[in-house]
């Protein structure tokens, strides 16, 4: 009896089904998802108080908050998978840039509003389709997180798609700016669905969605939105990768310097 209680309080019984090696892989993958939401949420939060109009300041803060909420659920689950007693804050604040596993897209700077909208659109289009697949995922905890986040991601994709259309089919200036942002950021979109070695293994084991299955839906949505925005879908783009394996652009270091400032300056305290 005593033993059972200890087991229940320290360990999620469902996790016992995973072999240690698989569990380690799943930990790495959940960390990757958490890093992704955190870095993008952080970037969006940089807009707070500086948006082009109050309503959009609110909208971007809202999306950032949703992403931070998702981040916390994911880090909490990652900490459980790891089982080494680390907390969500340890994972966010005490890992270096090369340990971060977010794709390159989300660490790119806010730029102007067009850059932010394009970055958001490319991510939302992936996030939405990915979460939909994750709903029927073999891992129940990830499916539960996906269920909550999908409602939010549906709204995010609607927001960024509508802005792509407004900017593309708005004024001459907005069109030029959004075209420039697309030319700049499209090269980071491929990494989202290009599986890493880790992802391939987890996909083969049926533990995470196969990106091949969501690519058609993503492409169809992008084509439809860009057509409505009277914009061309970029062709033959050389796709940059590396973030999901810890090889980042230089931007991430500065994000983490700011993000981790308090925890690094005052180690081990409670805030």
């Amino acid at each position, binding site marked *: 009896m005593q033993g059972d209680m200890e087991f229940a309080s320290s360990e999620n019984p469902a996790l016992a089904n995973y072999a240690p090696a698989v569990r380690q892989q799943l930990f790495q993958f959940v960390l990757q998802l958490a890093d992704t939401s955190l870095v993008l949420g952080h970037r969006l939060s940089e807009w*707070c108080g*500086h948006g082009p109009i109050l309503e959009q300041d609110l909208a971007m803060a809202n999306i950032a908050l949703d992403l931070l909420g998702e981040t916390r659920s994911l880090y909490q689950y990652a900490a459980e998978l790891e089982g080494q007693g680390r907390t969500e804050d340890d994972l966010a604040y005490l890992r270096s840039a090369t340990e971060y596993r977010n794709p390159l897209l989300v660490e790119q700077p806010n730029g102007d509003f067009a850059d932010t909208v394009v970055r958001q659109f490319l991510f939302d289009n992936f996030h939405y389709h990915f979460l939909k697949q994750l709903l029927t995922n073999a891992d129940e905890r990830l499916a539960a997180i996906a269920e909550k986040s999908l409602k939010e991601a549906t709204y995010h994709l609607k927001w960024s798609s509508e802005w792509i259309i407004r900017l593309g089919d708005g*004024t001459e200036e907005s069109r030029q700016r959004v075209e420039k942002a697309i030319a700049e950021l499209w090269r980071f979109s491929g990494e989202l669905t290009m599986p890493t070695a880790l992802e391939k293994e987890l996909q083969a084991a049926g533990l995470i969605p196969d990106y091949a299955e969501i690519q058609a839906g993503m492409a169809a949505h992008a084509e439809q939105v860009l057509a409505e925005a009277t914009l061309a879908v970029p062709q033959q783009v050389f796709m940059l990768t590396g973030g999901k394996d810890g090889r980042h652009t230089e931007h991430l270091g500065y994000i983490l310097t700011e993000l981790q400032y308090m925890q690094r300056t005052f180690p081990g*305290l409670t805030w």
Partner: protein
Amino acid sequence: METLEMTQEEQFQARIDADVRIEPKDWMPDAYRKTLIRQISQHAHSELVGMLPEGNWITRAPSLKRKSILLSKVQDEAGHGLYLYSAAETLGTTRDQMLADLHSGKAKYSSIFNYPTLSWADMGCVGWLVDGAAILNQVPLCRTSYGPYARAMVRVCKEESFHQRQGFEIMQTLCEGAPEQKAMAQEALNRWWWPTLMMFGPKDEDSPNTAQSMNWRIKRFTNDELRQKFVDMMVPQAEFLGLTVPDPLVKWNEARQAYDFGEVNWDEFWAVVKGNGLCNRDRLGARVKAHEEGAWVREAAMAHAAKRAERETAAA
């Protein structure tokens, strides 16, 4: 004509005296309208500019939980700005006009936001003291005579009291933490105490608009009355936290049943009001920059909406 005007004015004052709310379509004296536009827009601008000193720490918040709470709080302030601009618009002005007045320096915002936020404990002090002072100013406004303003304030006050609690909770966590955290809390209190006392405005004898605003029931308490209430509320809270209010003259006065306290540095108050605080230029500069850099976005949204409306008309 003159007699009719007098009658309207008398009727208006009779409604105010009977605590009947004034609504947008009701007749009101021009001076009442102007005072309200000035006050409500100033309040809206304060919410907008007030996003900056706290927004400054969102990217550096010490935990994921604190980061979410802070972002959500600053977002609430944007929401308050929206309700208040809408309330002011019912008086016949526009948000564009109000923003133009803010950017040109014609309209004011609360001077407290011209002080810098230098440590994490400042997030505690801004919530605990600044929002605490704002609540004392604002709770009576839920009963102010102009209906749309009063209704907006009911929503604002509900959220502000949550903000104040979270600020206090940040302070409490610091004060119960390591010595360097407690020192951080005390240092922040030392910087924020006097500026928050200034938030209630000049002394009653130097506040020429107070009497008329009280008569119109836009205002319900004088500046000095509210300042006293604030000191009476905060001194025991600081004691509970184990912090010392940076005023050697603070002392309980048994006869008055209130705390005595020292004199605010009014030279500093006027200097900051006139634009010479540490952050006046940065705050206004950040607002002007956001507005100017956002112009093409707003134009694009308008142009797209117009194109869409045109297509829908053509299709119909």
